[in-house]
């Protein structure tokens, strides 16, 4: 029996604790759904090919590149974007360490970088430098040469973070 292809579908997701329900084009990328439909513009796009990692989010706890998924694939998922990292306006240790250690310049890769680093520290409390580099291998930064990013993640892991 032939089934007619659908060109749109209903998507229900939880993003940063908020519920969203939208009718969405079947071909719409998850990153464009997050940015354009939900107006959560912290998640960025830096390439067309899944290389740069600026769009990295947590999808049901896994770090994924949201440009490599369709929005409809996220139906029923719980998503965390960079906007969901802080609680009650308090920066996380990683966010604070990124600022303290000057781990960002233009800030464009930062959201994806923070999500990858968050995922790492959730699964490995005391990563080695090599483990950190491997964890952010899928995130391209064109400004920092990664030096201070690696240091910031180390600092956040070891609790050496200044606070205002």
């Amino acid at each position, binding site marked *: 029996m032939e089934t007619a292809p659908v060109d749109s579908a209903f998507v229900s997701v939880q993003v940063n604790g908020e519920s969203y329900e939208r009718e969405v084009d079947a071909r719409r990328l998850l990153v464009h759904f997050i940015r354009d439909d939900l107006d959560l*513009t912290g998640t960025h*796009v830096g390439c*067309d090919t899944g290389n740069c990692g600026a769009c990295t989010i947590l999808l049901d706890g896994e770090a994924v590149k949201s440009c490599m998924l369709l929005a409809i694939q996220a139906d029923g998922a719980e998503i965390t974007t*960079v906007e969901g990292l802080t609680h009650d306006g308090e920066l996380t240790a990683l966010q604070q360490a990124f*600022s303290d250690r000057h781990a960002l*310049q*233009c*800030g464009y890769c930062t959201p994806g970088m923070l999500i990858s680093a968050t995922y790492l520290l959730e699964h490995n409390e005391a990563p080695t430098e090599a483990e950190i580099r491997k964890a952010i291998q899928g995130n*391209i930064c064109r400004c920092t*040469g990664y030096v201070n990013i690696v240091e910031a993640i180390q600092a956040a892991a070891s609790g050496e973070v200044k606070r205002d």
Partner: protein
Amino acid sequence: MTETTVAPERTETEAPQRGYIGVNVPRKEDKRLVQGEGLFVDDVKRHGMAYVHFVRSPYAHARIASVDVSKAEALDGVYGTLTGDEVAELTDPFFQIAPPPGGHVKDYALAVGRVRHVGEPVVAVAARTRELARDAADLVEVEYEPLDPIVDPERAADPDAPQLHDDVPSNTIWNGHFDYGDYDGALAAADKVIRIKRLHFDRFSSTPLETSGAVVEYNRGTGQWTLHCNNQFPGFAIIMMAPALRTGMDKLRFVSQDVGGGFGNKICTHPQLVALCLLSRKLKRACQWTEWRTEQHMANSHGNERVFLDVEVPVTDDGLMLGFKARMIDDCGAYTRYEPLGCIIWAQVTPGAYRWRNVRVEFTQVCTNKSPCGPNRGYSRMQHLWFTERVMDVVADELKLDRVAVRKKNYIRADEMPYETPNGCIYDSGDYALCLDKALELVDYESIEERRREAESRGKLLGVGIGSTLDSGTNNFGQATLVNPELQYSVNNEVASVKLDIFGEIVVTLGTTPQGQGHETTAAQIVADILGVTPDDVNVRPGHDSYWNSHAGFSGTYASQFAVTGLGAVKGATEMLADQIRTLAGAVLGGVPPEQIELAEGFARIKGNPEAALPFMACGAIVNANNAVLPLELRDITLNCRYVYVPPHQLPDKERKYGNLTLTYATQIHACVVEVDEETGSYEIVDYGAVDDCGVRINPQIVEGQVHGATAQALGAATHETFAYDEQGNLLTPNFYDYHVPHALDMPPLKTGYIESPSPFTPLGAKGMGEGGGAGLSAVCSALQDALRPVGRPIVYDSCNPYWRVWEMLRDPAKTRENVEVETR
């Protein structure tokens, strides 16, 4: 030729006390950026806006026989299209910097009649969503008649080469002869002459992670466009666009907040911006365009490819190089947008870091069927400095001179600063030999021979290399007249405004368009010191708006100058404001002379009598709200001060191509250790040291971040990154799969060091910096040549050396040596 350039006046040492200068003040920008609350161009949305997609040429060179947009326009959700024919009718070609023949190039927002590179925009399509715009673009039917392309710059001027532009014969955009000192005399005096037939600097770009883009709105009532965009040099873009659009400069309002990296690549976006202006007016709706990554690689600014031919270096027996002679061919791609300025900008660093007094250069720029070139971090100087460092190593190695000793012999010495180069540039300060010592120390140079043996025991070839960059900053735009004497550009300027608002809030607006350089923070540091407050008390408006009255003709962020021009303007404006506050407070506090008033902790108070103090809030209120308190004779006090910083430049001598082309010369000296696998040619950078000298460091952490980033870009360009084209002009590296930029695991351990040689010519003793990466390119080439020495002494001729190029050198070192010759007199 004994006439010398007049060195700029030395700046009086009235710099503010070093309260916050030299302190790692946390960046004001960070809080929003780490929370995803920045505002980048693709974040800007307008009601009912159209998404724009460009139909691009699949051919490197072709005549456009016909364009049919009817099927695209018929698609549901498509708002409209724009074609090259419409552009040709509604706009004039962009102003050309070049004199004829290059000046005959006709460059429009979309291809008119002919395409000249793969990826050239032909039609723009606007639709309700990004996806629909792409669908509609697929429905546009363009019929092309392919023409032969010219891809190789060394063949572009051949008589049988296809010609790109009417009235630009031999594809030659610009040609100039540079002759400084007495080259023939130097040649006659030489004991040895080294000749190198060819060196080649590859095409690449910094590929900022955020691609170019804009949201353009047209106000029909006023005929004014607002361009929310990430163009990094609005001053230049407006000058290019207003005449093309047949409108006034003030009808183009440029707005940006956060910009995701620029590196020069976001200077020449004016063609796409004009297309968006036309579309937004035609469709009566805001038009949004975000470049796709593939489009950025195919059609955004590339860094200039350059070939150095028939290089000749006269040397004395003691290793002193007397200068050089070369023919240089620069490939600017299909169109001249910022070009041919690259034909003169290299001359800011004519002798590199060396005391080379006799120089003869025949410089030619040609166009080819490749993406147009434009400024790219280290613009035009990087290519030239790489050449000087290659020359240094080839000469040292061929004459079996010690590479360190011969550099130190030829380096300009610290006690010669300020140093006048043979073409009249004034190197302001620096100590290259000291920087080199520190760089070598960082890679433990003393132990190199031991490490070489140890590597050998593991079957690896170890080599050490050295590179330098003179990061010349604060352009004298008068150098444009050396490529085109008719141009009316000279010197440089930047603006800042500082005001004290009604509740005592200090508000700073900049003319710059930062892309991660932390301008909000460093500006606040300068203001805080002068007004006696903390950087937290200073509100620096993020981004740029050309309507803010902090916009001048050269406003933007480019060419290593903010620490001089931007902060010079901030300092000037803040000092004006401080004077006004002191005058006002003195009057209000009972006729105390201004010099008796000090500014501290948010108060204007009488020195020695801190009880007699007027809070800034009261000052702001008196001028902005409570005017009865303002004495009549002080009505010219506005507490809103605008200052234009203009560097002390003069017009260069057009005939002799002579004069001071930039105000400051930051230095970077890098040392690099590589290990090469003899079987495969793959190699690893195992040790790396970068030493920076940018004079007074306002915020050391920011400076160091620039050193890291520039180095990473250089290492990417040295090992992987190249925009490779096939013979038909197809780009082979159009995305981050094929164009490999450094990832975290690719980066070697970076060690950094610094010295501070304050500039005697700048308001804060600081120098612009950020483009020092070229040293890394040279250092890797230098290290590879050193490592490969035991296997037939091959010579490194290219700037980019992926493993396969190293493998070729390993396999046939003799072939690389055919291009070098030593004549003993």
